[in-house]
């Protein structure tokens, strides 16, 4: 009798442990979201309003800046930094505001952003070789974006014919001088300017 009781007790104990653990998970998610929202609203209301606006309709320029930083990290063979900057770029891409463009341009920009965000996110969690693979397609996305949005910056489209077993890869840079993001230190100066934008 005693034994049965003890077993029952233990079963109940185990059940409650499992239940509380799983309930905790649910609880953790729920209140956390509204709370952080509140905090955002309070602290960002007045003072930071202007700064917020700048961030919110992330202009093509903001995206380009993040992209160039990411490119520099790849040039420098810096995997961790590229990861961070990939995440930064992903969030800037996500806040891009296309409302001032025509309907067809908006659709095109939406497609570009969706694709680019995915590549930036991958870059934020990959090894160098993989980061560079995604950087290649990301570069195409950003180039296509600039074709629509235009920019006041002077940009060089550069190309290294050797990347990925001679498939080649293009990228954008603010400097005419070649600094290769696909090979980094291994072949820092491989490539040429293909086109000048502006």
């Amino acid at each position, binding site marked *: 009798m005693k034994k049965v009781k003890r*077993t029952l007790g*233990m*079963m109940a*104990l*185990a*059940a409650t*442990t*499992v239940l509380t653990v*799983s309930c905790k998970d649910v609880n953790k998610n729920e209140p956390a979201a509204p709370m952080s929202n509140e905090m955002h609203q309070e602290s960002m209301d007045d003072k930071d309003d202007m700064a917020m606006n700048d961030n919110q309709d992330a202009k093509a320029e903001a995206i380009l800046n993040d992209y160039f930083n990411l490119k520099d990290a790849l040039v420098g063979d810096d995997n961790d930094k590229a990861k961070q900057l990939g995440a930064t770029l992903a969030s800037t891409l996500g806040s891009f505001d296309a409302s001032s463009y025509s309907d067809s341009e908006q659709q095109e920009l939406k*497609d*570009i952003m*969706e*694709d680019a965000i*995915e*590549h930036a996110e991958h870059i934020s969690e990959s090894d160098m070789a993989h980061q560079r*693979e995604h950087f290649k*397609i990301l570069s195409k*996305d950003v180039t296509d974006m600039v074709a629509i949005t235009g920019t006041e910056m002077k940009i060089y489209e550069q190309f290294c014919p050797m990347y990925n077993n001679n498939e080649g890869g293009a990228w954008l840079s603010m400097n005419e001088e070649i600094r290769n993001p696909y090979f980094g230190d291994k072949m820092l100066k491989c490539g040429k300017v293909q086109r000048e934008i502006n």
Partner: protein
Amino acid sequence: MKFLKIIAWLALVALIVIQFFPIILNESDYVPQSDFMVENQVPATIKNRLQVSCYDCHSNNTDYPWYSKIQPATWFLEDHIQEGKDELNFNEWATYSDRRKNSKLRSIISQIEEDKMPLDSYTLIHKDAILSDEDKRMIIDYMKALKDSLE
């Protein structure tokens, strides 16, 4: 000794209790119009390879083995499948823009070329999902042709 016994009992009880937790299975008995195989003319052999080697985690319908319905295996698989579908869901192929299709095809090709997909942890159990060199060549050629047709 007594202590060990208690632990063993607790583990057993916990194992029984978690069997009663509701599980969400990735199962669907219809193939949407947006499916990869519906939108594209896929040769039967490739169709079959994709179905067996990829669709378990990259579509809305997983062909579950018996042990997967026992916890905690189901939870483990649930995460994996969710991740796989976020990355690529063949059932939603037609909803991707051409640009994204291009990116997806590129990733499909490189993942297979580099032997990263199907995952080792998956083929360990699903021997039939292992792609032979011939399968790989066939799938890659097909995906490359499809990619070229989009560009």
